């Protein structure tokens, strides 16, 4: 549409895809930020504007923004709007760490769904950690 001039372009989102819509938005924005196309400080569209651009519900965009905020990719400033965080690029590129956080998050969800208690989940994690010792030569970070 002619009056839509935004720097943020995302690939099409699909319902019934492998990931829920909000997660597809999170991934797409993370890729934009990681690639440097959305440098730190870039304004994000308001979620109402963005919902209209993507043709998805307000609740979906709100949820995607909440997740990105939680991961430190974007920042909300009361009354000013939402921006790419100063270290958003690094955080979004630290893909492996975030991927691990997400994998653990869904493991927790799966555990709860399976009826495991928190104690049992921790036991499993400890066993996994013990069973896969950290290589001595590998330092953390990149």
């Amino acid at each position, binding site marked *: 549409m002619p009056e839509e001039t935004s720097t943020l372009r995302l690939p099409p989102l699909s319902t019934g895809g492998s990931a829920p819509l909000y997660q597809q938005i999170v991934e797409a924005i993370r890729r934009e930020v990681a690639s440097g196309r959305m440098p730190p400080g870039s304004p994000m569209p308001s979620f*109402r504007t963005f919902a209209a651009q993507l043709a998805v*519900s*307000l609740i979906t965009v709100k949820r995607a923004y909440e997740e990105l905020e939680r991961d430190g990719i974007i920042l909300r400033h009361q009354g000013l709007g939402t921006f790419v965080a100063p270290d958003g690029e690094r955080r979004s590129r630290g893909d492996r760490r975030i991927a691990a956080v997400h994998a653990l998050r869904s493991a927790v969800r799966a555990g709860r769904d399976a*009826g495991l208690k928190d104690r049992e989940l921790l036991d499993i994690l400890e066993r996994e950690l013990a069973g896969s010792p950290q290589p001595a030569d590998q330092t953390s970070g990149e």
Partner: protein
Amino acid sequence: MSTAVDLKHVCTRFGREFSLGPLNLSVPRGSIYALIGPNGAGKSTTLNLLMGAKRPEMGTIELLGLPFPAQDAAIKQRIGFVSPELDYSAWRTVGRAIDFVRSFYPDWVQSRTERLQMLLDIHRTQRIAELSFGQRTKLALIMALSRECELLILDEPTIGLDPVSKRVIFIELLRFMENESRTVLISSHQLSDVERIADHVALLNHGTLLTASPIDELLERYRWVELAARESQAAVIQGTTVLERGEGRERLLLDLRVTTPQMLLERGLDIISSTPMSLEELFLTLIRADDARRPWRPR
């Protein structure tokens, strides 16, 4: 947050077979709110009550904070309707119908009418009698979306629309929602569309409200659970509804607000799988579970 539509204890009857209510429904401003349910559940009847096409036998209705129908005239200026029953054929052509309707509304935005006509491929010279069902719906949507109203009430607005037009309409509805004091109340059978654009959903069955909630909360609340069945113990556990049984398996709808998978395990039940559901699957399951609780009635 204030409410755009507020129904309190509303009841009405339709013929001998169908009764609606008592219905309590509260639609918050700033949201797209979807009314879903099988045919004959009471969706259109509810919307007809809000359009004044039908009067409740009991209960009160408030629209945009004003009592309805007492403040009918003031309310109608601030609301737009789309219904398959709207008929503009008396004006012969699209152009004359648009000009006529526009004359009633000072909040009409002609540039938007023209943009929508272009996007939806509807022309002023077209004869209304020759429009297809989908084209008539498009015309009604153009009329409703050309105004700066505060509340849009849409009865099955996407029936007969091709995917391109449907997408145009969704984007227009979401653009309409960029002003956060606005509200859209929509009834639809197209549940994947509802899942995509609606914020809240209310599920009706046989004239009663089964559930009303933000759509993400609704989807997170239920799980489809498969158990290895020995004796059937799950039937008596609160928060579960047995859907199927057989081949050593038992399939349940689990309401996580009442019972968690952990509580099933503590009772010695063996969970094979526990999966979230799409809105469509959840809809089918909740309706089936509700029907099973009722004495048999013809649909």
